[in-house]
C-alpha cells in the first residue's frame, strides 16, 4: 500500500474503487475489452480470469433506487407493457434503457450475459429481454435447488461444474482467447481472501454493543459483489476491518447508543428507506444487525480445485436451499449475534426470497421464541411503500418487544 492509500479511509477507498471500476467499464469497448452482464451471485471469477469486465445491472439498479429514480423509470416501461409487479431492479434497469437516465451516466451495453438462477429465476427472464435487445448471447447458469440429499448434491455439483466448463468455452468463443486455469486459481484465491474478510466484517455484529449495523454491511457489500476476485477487494476489507476495530470495537462504541434490541432482517433491504429505518429503530434502542442476504457473499472458496469450489459455493447460496436449511442458516445468525428481534420484510419485488416467508417465520419463531413482524412493501418502488402504515407497525412491534422484556425481567414469562 502506498502512502496516499494508507491515509485513505475505507469509505474513500471504496469510492475510489467504484469510480475506477465504472470508468474502466465505460472505456472497455474502446480498449478492445468485452463486457459481460452478470448476476450478483454468479461465478464472476471466470470473467476476471479472462479479462472480461463483469457488470452488475442489479448494482446499477440499486443506485437508481437510492437516487429515487425507480418510479419514473418504471412508469416509462409500464407504458411499454411491462407490469409494476416485476422486480424493481429489472424495472429500473429496463427504464434506464428507455430514458437513458442514471446517477452514474449509465452502464455500457453487454457483449455477453450470464444469469445464475441460484439467486432467482427473475434474472433469467430480465436478462432474456436484454439479450434480445442487444442481440447478445445469454448463458443461463442453472443451479437446481440444493436439496438435502447427498447423492443429489453430488449430481448437482457435477451439473454445475459441467456448466462452468461450458461457460469457459463460451468465453473463449467470445474473445478468441484461450482460458487460463492458473489465472483462475489466482482469482479464486483473491475471492477466497475477500470473502473471509467480508464475513469477518459481518461477524463484527456479534460484539456487544455491535460496532456495525446492517446498513454498514449493505454499503460495504458492494465491493465484494463486483470486485471479488481482485486484490483491491482484499485490501479494502482489511482496511475496513482495521478501521472498525480501531474506531469502534476497541473503544467499545456501538453503532447506536443504548443498544437494547439486536434485530434480524429478513430479505433484501428497502433501499430507499434504510436511513430512515435506522433512525426510527435507534430511537427505540434497536438496531438491525444482519440478514441472510448480506451473508450471500460469505463464500468459502478452495482455490486448489477452482471449478468445483465455484460450483459448490454458488449452488448453495441461501436462496437456493430448502426452507428448513435456510431457516437453520438464519437461526445460526440468531445464536451467533444474540439477536432478540425479527423484522421480516415481504418484498413484492423479490418473490424468490419472499415466497415462503410465512413458513419461514413459523420455524424461526418456534425455535427462538422471538416474535416476528411480517410486513409487505417493495425494495425499490416508493409507490408500494406506505410510510405511516409501516412506521406504525414497526413502532407497535418495538413496543411489543418492550412489553415482553418488561415481563421477562419480572419473571412473568419464560
Amino acid at each position: 500500500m502506498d502512502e496516499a492509500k494508507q491515509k485513505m479511509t475505507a469509505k474513500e477507498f471504496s469510492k475510489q474503487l467504484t469510480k475506477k471500476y465504472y470508468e474502466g467499464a465505460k472505456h472497455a469497448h474502446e480498449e478492445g475489452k468485452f463486457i459481460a452482464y452478470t448476476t450478483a451471485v454468479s461465478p464472476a471469477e471466470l470473467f476476471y480470469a479472462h479479462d472480461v469486465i463483469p457488470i452488475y445491472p442489479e448494482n446499477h439498479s440499486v443506485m437508481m433506487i437510492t437516487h429515487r429514480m425507480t418510479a419514473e423509470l418504471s412508469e416509462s416501461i409500464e407504458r411499454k407493457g411491462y407490469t409494476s409487479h416485476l422486480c424493481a431492479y429489472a424495472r429500473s434497469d429496463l427504464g434506464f434503457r428507455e430514458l437513458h437516465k442514471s446517477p452514474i451516466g449509465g452502464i455500457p451495453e453487454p457483449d455477453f450475459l450470464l444469469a445464475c438462477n441460484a439467486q432467482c429465476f427473475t434474472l433469467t427472464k430480465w436478462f432474456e429481454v436484454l439479450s434480445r435487445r442487444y442481440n447478445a448471447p445469454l448463458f443461463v447458469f442453472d443451479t437446481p435447488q440444493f436439496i438435502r440429499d447427498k447423492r443429489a448434491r453430488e449430481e448437482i455439483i457435477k451439473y454445475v461444474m459441467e456448466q462452468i466448463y461450458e461457460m469457459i468455452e463460451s468465453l473463449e468463443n467470445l474473445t478468441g482467447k484461450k482460458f487460463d486455469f492458473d489465472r483462475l486459481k489466482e482469482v479464486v484465491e483473491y475471492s477466497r481472501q475477500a470473502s473471509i474478510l467480508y464475513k469477518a466484517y459481518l461477524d463484527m455484529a456479534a460484539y456487544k454493543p455491535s460496532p456495525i449495523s446492517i446498513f454498514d454491511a449493505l454499503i460495504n457489500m458492494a465491493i465484494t459483489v463486483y470486485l471479488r476476485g481482485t486484490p483491491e477487494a482484499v485490501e479494502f476489507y482489511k482496511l475496513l476491518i482495521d478501521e472498525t476495530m480501531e474506531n469502534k470495537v476497541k473503544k467499545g462504541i456501538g453503532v447506536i447508543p443504548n443498544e437494547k434490541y439486536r434485530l434480524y432482517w429478513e430479505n433484501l433491504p428497502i433501499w430507499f428507506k434504510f436511513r430512515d429505518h435506522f433512525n426510527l429503530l435507534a430511537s427505540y434502542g434497536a438496531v438491525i444487525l444482519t440478514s441472510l442476504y448480506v451473508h450471500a457473499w460469505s463464500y468459502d472458496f478452495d482455490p486448489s480445485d477452482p471449478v468445483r469450489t465455484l460450483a459448490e459455493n454458488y449452488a448453495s447460496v441461501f436462496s437456493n436451499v430448502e426452507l428448513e436449511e435456510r431457516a437453520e442458516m438464519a437461526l445460526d445468525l440468531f445464536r451467533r449475534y444474540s439477536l432478540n428481534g425479527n423484522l421480516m420484510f415481504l418484498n413484492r419485488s423479490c418473490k424468490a426470497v419472499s415466497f415462503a416467508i410465512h413458513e419461514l417465520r413459523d420455524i424461526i419463531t418456534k425455535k427462538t421464541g422471538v416474535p416476528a413482524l411480517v410486513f409487505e412493501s417493495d425494495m425499490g418502488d416508493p409507490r408500494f411503500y406506505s410510510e405511516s402504515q409501516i412506521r406504525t407497525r414497526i413502532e407497535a412491534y418495538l413496543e411489543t418487544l418492550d412489553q415482553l422484556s418488561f415481563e421477562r425481567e419480572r419473571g412473568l414469562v419464560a
Partner: protein
Amino acid sequence: MKKEEILKTLHDISADPFPYLRSKRESGLKIIGSPLADVPSEMIYAAGLLPVTILGTNKPIVKAGAHLPDNACSLSRSNLELVLNYHPDDFDGFVFPQVCDTTQHLSDIWKMTISSEFFTSFLIPRQVDRKSARHWFYAETSRLRENLERYTGSPITDEALRESFRLFNEGRRLLREIYQIKREAPGVISDRQLFDLIRSFCYMDPKDHIPLLQELIDVLPKEPSDDGNVKVVLSGIVVEPAQLFDILDELKVSIVGDDLTVGSRMIAYDVPDREDVIEALTERHFAKSPFSPIRDVGTRLYDFLLQVVEETHADGVIYFHIKFCESQDYDLPDMKRIMRERKIPMIVLDTEYQSVTKAQTKTRLEAFVESLYGERDNG
C-alpha cells in the same frame, strides 16, 4: 357408446376427476400428483402408481392465502388450495417439479403444509440449449426412478417402462389424431370438448382413456368440412377457467393450434424407442416446444408460435396470461411487438382461476373475434 356419451364422460372427468380417482384408489392404485410441468408421468405409471397432473381449482381460495404472498401466481394459489383445502386426502404422494421461483418455493411450502406418504422434488433443467442440461435431466430422472422404487419397494423394470411409454404414446397419438380431425373439420367437436379430452389425459389411467378415445375416433366423421368459423391459435401455459373455451365456442372461433403446456406441448412429443429407457425420456424432454420459464435457444419461444400460426393458417392468436405469472410478464411486451411487426392479430387475456371470467373478458374477446371476421372477410 355414442359420440355425445363419450364426450360427456370425459367432460365430467376433466371437470372433476376426483370421483374417478377415488374409484381407482379403491381398486388399490395409489395416486401421485404433480403440478406443471414436465414430470415424466410414464415413470410414475411404470412404478405401478397413477400419475395425475394437478391443474388447480376454480373454487374459492380459503386456506392457501395464509401461506402465500398476495402476488403469488393464480396457478400456484389454486394448486395449493386444491390439495390443502378441497382434496387433502385424495393423494398418496407428490412428485413436485421446479421450473421457476414460484414452483421452487411452493415445493418447500407444500412439504410443510401437506402430509403425504411420498414427496420428491423433480428439478428440471431451466435451460435446454447445452449438453449439460441433458446430462442433468438424465441424472434427475434416474433419481426419480430410485425414489419411486424406494417408495413402492419394488424395482421399476425397463419392461414396465417400455409398456408405459407405449400406453402414453398411444394416448397422445389418439389425441393428436382427434386434434387433426378438428383442424380439418372444426365443427366435429367443440373447442371445449377438444380441451376436455386433453385435460382428461392429465387425470386418467391410459388403459381407461385409450379405449374411449379410440371409440370416439371411430364415430367421428372424417371428411374435411369448413364450419366458416375464424381460426385461432391459443398461446400461453394453461387456459383457465375452462369456461373460456365455451366462450370461444359461443363466439364461433375454432382452435386450430396452440403452444399451451396443457395442450399441444403435452401431447405432441412421444417417448422414442431407445435401448436406454432413461435416455428415451431425456430425448423426449428436449424435443418439446418452448415453455416460458425454461430458457430456450435464442428467440425460439416466439419463433415456435409464429411457426404454428403459419402452419395452421390461423387468423389470429389468443394469449392467455395467468395472473401474476412473472415469466409470462417478461415475455409479453416483446411478444406483442413481434406479432405487431408480423401483422398477426393477437389479444392478451389476463386470467385467474377464481374469476368467473364473464363480462369484461367476453366483451374484449367479442371485439377481437369481430375484428378477425372483419379482416378475413374484407382481406
